[in-house]
């Protein structure tokens, strides 16, 4: 370029930036980080809410014994933690008969397998409940619960249908046998012997494993039920809801496991064999932690006319907590929204501080630049020309930082959504809205220009005579 003998204002700007290499790089990086942070926050903020709203499925009402409607929703739909209290099965039956339900489904939640929630359900769940309003349960392989095998063998109480995320994580296949943990073990990983692959040797009932030792987590009271192996009969397609990271077993199976615990505790059957059967079940064993319920709606409407009436009627019962999940999620987000605003405010502060960073970077280089500005003035540069040179530099810093920030944000969003998917079963598509990108990058450039304005004005006012006195 130099030998060709061409030169432009841009040459001056770019060479200047290169001469101040380190400060240029640091400034661009700080702009990039600010832009990336703002973009990631804005993106996740919207998609997070969308995901939560979607996750409540097509139920109208949720009945639990939790302390508040919101905890009910978080525990029984998003599997946040084990519901502390349960309802007797008779209560479920009474509620199921109390209103014209499209469905009323009992769930028992309190067990886990490798820290994924194991939910006791009836076979109706798969036929009736839609985990997302637009997507019913679908199988990747195998069958749902309660359906006879292809060879005519009847369904049992000890089979399991696995959500897509769990299946993927543990590489589960139809035919594998799982041993389920009562409660949640502190160790999030696998427990020795909790999975026997299809065709593998199952432990002798009551023999291989000491009920109280090998599978026991003394801290939480969680323990593995080695007496009952649950055979994987189906693996679900992804629904992009929390149900992807759950395992579903027959309600009866869940009850029998706990009846066994009761018997063991009473020392009537001290750790010998799978003893408890359906016949051993007492009414007190038949517990339900949640009821998913949907009312019959008219064609083309999702909100039934009698929703409020049924809600008010059920609310009179002090032993249950009733919630409208979508409403609870809406309320949750009005709380979380404040936090989001805080984050966005923080992002803006970060962005402003990177603007200050640009200002300082430009200003710090003013000693060198004042001399340069004075030289350019002597060569005939007008003040407007000087102003445009300094502003062009800060605009370039803003554009470079903005572009890098978009790249970082895309990477960051992909990383975050991957993390949310594997950790929490939340499927968030990292959509970076083009308009948002344009607005954020444009404001970064604008901010950079504003930050450059002060040094530019300083350069504009530079006293040429003063700065061209002999140096040194």
């Amino acid at each position, binding site marked *: 370029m130099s030998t060709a*003998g061409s030169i432009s204002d841009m040459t001056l700007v770019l060479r200047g930036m290169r001469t101040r290499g380190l400060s240029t790089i640091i400034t661009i990086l700080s702009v990039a980080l600010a832009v990336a942070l703002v973009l990631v926050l804005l993106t996740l903020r919207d998609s997070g809410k969308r995901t939560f709203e979607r996750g409540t499925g097509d139920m109208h009402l949720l009945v639990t014994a939790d302390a508040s409607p919101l905890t009910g929703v978080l525990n029984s739909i998003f599997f946040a933690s084990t519901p502390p209290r349960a309802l007797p099965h008779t209560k479920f039956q009474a509620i199921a008969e109390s209103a014209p339900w499209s469905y009323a489904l009992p769930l028992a939640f309190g067990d886990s397998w490798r820290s994924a929630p194991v939910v006791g359900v009836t076979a109706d769940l798969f036929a009736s409940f839609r985990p997302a309003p637009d997507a019913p349960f679908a199988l990747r392989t195998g069958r749902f619960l309660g359906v006879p095998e292809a060879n005519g063998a009847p369904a049992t109480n000890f089979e399991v249908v696995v959500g897509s995320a769990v299946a993927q994580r543990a590489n589960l296949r139809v035919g594998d046998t799982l041993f389920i943990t009562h409660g949640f073990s502190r160790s999030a990983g696998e427990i020795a012997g909790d999975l026997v692959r299809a065709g593998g040797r199952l432990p002798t009932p009551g023999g291989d494993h000491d009920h109280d030792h090998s599978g026991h987590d003394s801290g939480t009271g969680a323990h593995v039920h080695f007496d009952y192996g649950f055979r994987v009969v189906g693996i679900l397609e992804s629904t992009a809801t929390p149900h992807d990271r759950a395992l579903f077993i027959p309600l009866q199976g869940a009850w029998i496991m706990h009846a066994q615990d009761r018997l063991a505790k009473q020392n009537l059957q001290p750790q010998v064999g799978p003893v408890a059967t359906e016949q051993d079940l007492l009414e007190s064993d038949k517990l339900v932690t949640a009821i998913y319920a949907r009312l019959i709606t008219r064609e083309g409407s999702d909100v039934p006319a009698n929703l409020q009436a049924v809600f008010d009627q059920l609310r009179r019962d002090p032993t249950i907590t009733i919630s409208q999940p979508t409403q609870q999620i809406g309320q949750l987000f009005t709380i979380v929204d404040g936090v989001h605003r805080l984050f966005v405010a923080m992002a803006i502060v970060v962005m402003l501080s990177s603007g200050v960073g640009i200002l300082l970077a430009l200003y710090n280089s003013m000693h060198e630049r004042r001399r340069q500005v004075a030289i350019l003035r002597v060569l005939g540069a007008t003040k407007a020309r000087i102003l445009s040179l300094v502003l062009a530099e800060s605009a370039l810093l803003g554009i470079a930082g903005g572009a890098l920030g978009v790249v970082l944000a895309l990477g960051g969003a992909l990383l975050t959504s991957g993390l949310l998917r594997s950790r929490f079963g939340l499927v968030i598509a990292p959509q970076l809205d083009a308009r948002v990108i344009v607005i954020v990058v444009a404001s970064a450039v604008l901010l950079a220009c504003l930050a450059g304005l002060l040094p530019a004005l300083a350069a504009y006012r530079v006293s040429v005579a003063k700065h061209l006195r002999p140096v040194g």
Partner: protein
Amino acid sequence: MPPALAPPALLVRNLAFTYPASSWTLRVPELTLAPREQLLMQATSGAGKSTLLSLIAGLLEPAEGSIEVQGTRIHALRGAARDRFRGRTLGMVFQTHHLISGLSALENVLAAPLMASLPVSAARAHELLSQLGIVRVSAKIDDLSVGQQQRVAIARALVCNPALVLADEPTASLDPANAQAAMDLLQQSCQAAGAALLCVSHDPAMAHRFARVEPLAADAAAQPLAGATP
């Protein structure tokens, strides 16, 4: 146009200048430079040499009097017009080179027409640099010796074919041998380019190079403005 009608390269009349909040006053009652004429103004440090050059370049405003460069009263021009006039009519050489680091020798020379909004002639820049003995025109300015840098500065002062070159202690940062060479080149180049040269220096050894030598009167400079104006 007959030579007699050509305006002088520089015409200073009754110039007085004082810095704000200072009793020090620079006075130049009369100073004329014919086209292509070369003049050495001798003065001790602090006599106001740099101030005089800044006034002539339109970078400072005189309190009294007038300055014409090639027939134009530079202080009658405002803002951008004055900047452009300076870039096109005047060349400046300083004690320290005042080149732009990060640019090559050639680019430093080309920055002059660029900033003066004149057509950039790479050929003229190459010609000047080769006359001044700069071979590595694409070398970064910081990689050149001080003597080479001063020669690049001379090329830059002349590349826009100015009517007048102002040189402020042009050899002060050079060793005697380089100083001789630089003054030879400066004077010859101005001659060749048809530019008048006003050189200010405190160096008595420089006097023999100039046909015309004038002092920047120290006593005049010392007089306070109010007392000196009858």
